[in-house]
């Protein structure tokens, strides 16, 4: 029997076959905690009496969730992280560097075959590089920082085969929202979700990461994509290990398979208050929008900002619009391409690279009763810091049109 992509990655680590349900112990290639999870991790690490971090090159801190800090409490937690990083000699990406899930691949921590753990649920993003990447909690992260290893249950794999050329105005965000609408919020619980097909092959790395990012919204343990020339082009000059092509065997076993005809899909949105409440944009057209947020580890990359700038260039937004590049590198490239100028001239507010309004921790919190269109990945009640807000998740294209018109419209 052939191996699925996740089974291949595990094979690469333990040098034997494993099967779903089996518990394996894997060495960790990168371990990340951010300002929402690192403070508890540090507390557990110290309470355990652990003395040192197993490998300074592989342990990473990122300050992105409340960044820059907005209050004394957070500043104190940030200091706790800086002190720990200094004491143990690990790398800390501080205020303004960007969102953890953008920084990790940019800085070369992620590569095909790697096992990546993050104290953040969207760690599954890195599966776009044919890595096994998954979220864990703070105490487990403390154990990883101390031991460099962790136990995993080998998951069953689901294959989602996506073919066809997307219509104009349809993006990878629409595909993944469509899939979550079908599979529902818990449909892939504990499973590895493997994406294949010519639509994926044609996609940029920016687009691919949108899809693996959202796998946790259907309960998935991780999302995975085979590595190819595009993966290589992104990683070249960034990673320290040799690049390798990694894909599932033809005769691998999947517990479920799903076919998606990408050429038939329309732009969609997730309606309040759950990610799997997915509707075609045409059904919600005309809903008035107070705030638009473009950014996050889902859709805050260069390609996203390009789409937005193209729509906004030379026009003025009607809704209050906040744009936040996912990282310093994205911001710099967007400045060089003139995108930032177009976005600012259109009347948007530009934020510091980081999580920003996505998680409702410091700024960009909607006003009571606001309707929000966001390019992020969660619209649970209270997600953006206020229970009385109605969040629609959408692609950067739909978000930009909503900004321009002050309401959700179907782009024509």
């Amino acid at each position, binding site marked *: 029997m052939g191996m699925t992509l996740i089974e291949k990655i595990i094979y690469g680590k333990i040098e034997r076959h494993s099967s779903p349900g089996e*518990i394996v*112990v894997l060495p960790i290639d990168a371990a990340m905690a951010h*300002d*929402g*999870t690192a*403070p*508890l991790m540090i*507390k*557990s690490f110290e*309470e*355990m*009496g*652990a003395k040192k971090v197993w490998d300074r090159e592989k342990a990473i801190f990122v300050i992105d*969730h*409340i960044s820059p800090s907005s*209050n004394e*409490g*957070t500043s104190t*937690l940030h200091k706790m992280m800086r002190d720990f990083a200094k004491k143990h000699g690990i790398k800390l990406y501080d205020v303004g560097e960007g969102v953890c899930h953008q920084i990790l691949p940019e800085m070369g921590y992620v590569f095909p075959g790697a096992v990546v753990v*993050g*104290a*953040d*649920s969207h760690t599954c993003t890195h599966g776009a590089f044919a890595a096994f990447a998954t*979220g*864990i*909690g*703070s*105490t*487990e992260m*403390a*154990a990883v920082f*101390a*031991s460099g*290893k*962790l*136990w995993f249950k080998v998951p069953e794999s689901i294959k989602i085969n996506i073919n066809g050329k997307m219509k104009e105005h349809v993006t990878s965000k629409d595909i993944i929202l469509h899939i979550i609408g079908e599979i529902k*919020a*818990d449909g892939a*619980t*504990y499973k590895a979700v493997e994406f294949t097909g010519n639509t994926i092959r044609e996609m940029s790395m920016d687009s691919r990461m949108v899809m693996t990012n959202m796998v946790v919204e259907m*309960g998935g*343990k991780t999302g995975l994509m085979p590595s190819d020339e595009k993966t290589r082009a992104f990683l070249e000059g960034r990673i320290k290990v040799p690049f390798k092509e990694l894909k599932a065997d033809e005769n691998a076993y999947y517990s479920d398979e799903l076919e998606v005809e990408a050429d038939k899909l329309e732009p969609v949105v997730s309606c309040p208050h*759950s990610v799997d409440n997915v509707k075609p944009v045409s059904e919600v057209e005309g809903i008035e929008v107070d705030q638009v947020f473009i950014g996050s580890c889902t859709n805050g990359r260069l390609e996203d900002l390009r789409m937005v700038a193209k729509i906004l260039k030379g026009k003025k937004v009607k809704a209050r619009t906040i744009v936040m590049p996912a990282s310093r590198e994205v911001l710099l490239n967007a400045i060089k391409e003139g995108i930032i100028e177009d976005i600012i001239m259109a009347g948007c507010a530009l934020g510091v690279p980081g999580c920003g309004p996505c*998680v*409702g*921790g*410091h700024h960009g919190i909607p006003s009571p009763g606001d309707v929000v269109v966001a390019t992020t990945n*969660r619209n*649970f*009640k*209270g*997600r953006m*810091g206020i*229970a009385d807000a109605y969040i629609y998740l959408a692609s950067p294209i739909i978000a930009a049109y909503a900004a321009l018109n002050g309401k959700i419209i179907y782009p024509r």
Partner: protein
Amino acid sequence: MIIKGRVWKFGDDISTDHIIPGKYKFKTIDLDELSKHLMEGVDPNFYSKISKGDIIVAGKNFGCGSSREQAPLIIKHAGIAAVVAKSFARIFYRNSFNIGLPVIESKDLVDYVNTGDIIEISLTDGKIYAKDMIFDFKPIPDFLMKILEDGGLVEHYKKRGKFPWE
């Protein structure tokens, strides 16, 4: 390990945002402070209603969303003895064992009990006794049971000087 207590019943897809809104977790790791907001997203007065030893019983996908360990931590800190749900989101499930909160998967219990009922859970036997019914659940793997008995991964490591996988 036997747990006996009063039921608080919840629906499906209770996210970690419902259990503890993100805005609080960035400001402090003081559990007394955070516990006051327990379940605020579903029932704003929940914390004032519960007593030590109570049990949360919920529908599917309990603990979905963010990886915040504060969610199971404050459930335990507030005195909740266990959570029984149709299914759990995987990070929440792992986190619960790591901090020493027993969590049990039972497909049927939630449809049978109501808030206020008294139930008894035998972790070792894999049984839940509710009124005149007995519900079986899959026994918890040995190494997770050990972590639970020690009171979480930190205590486990302190006691044994190594992690279960070493």
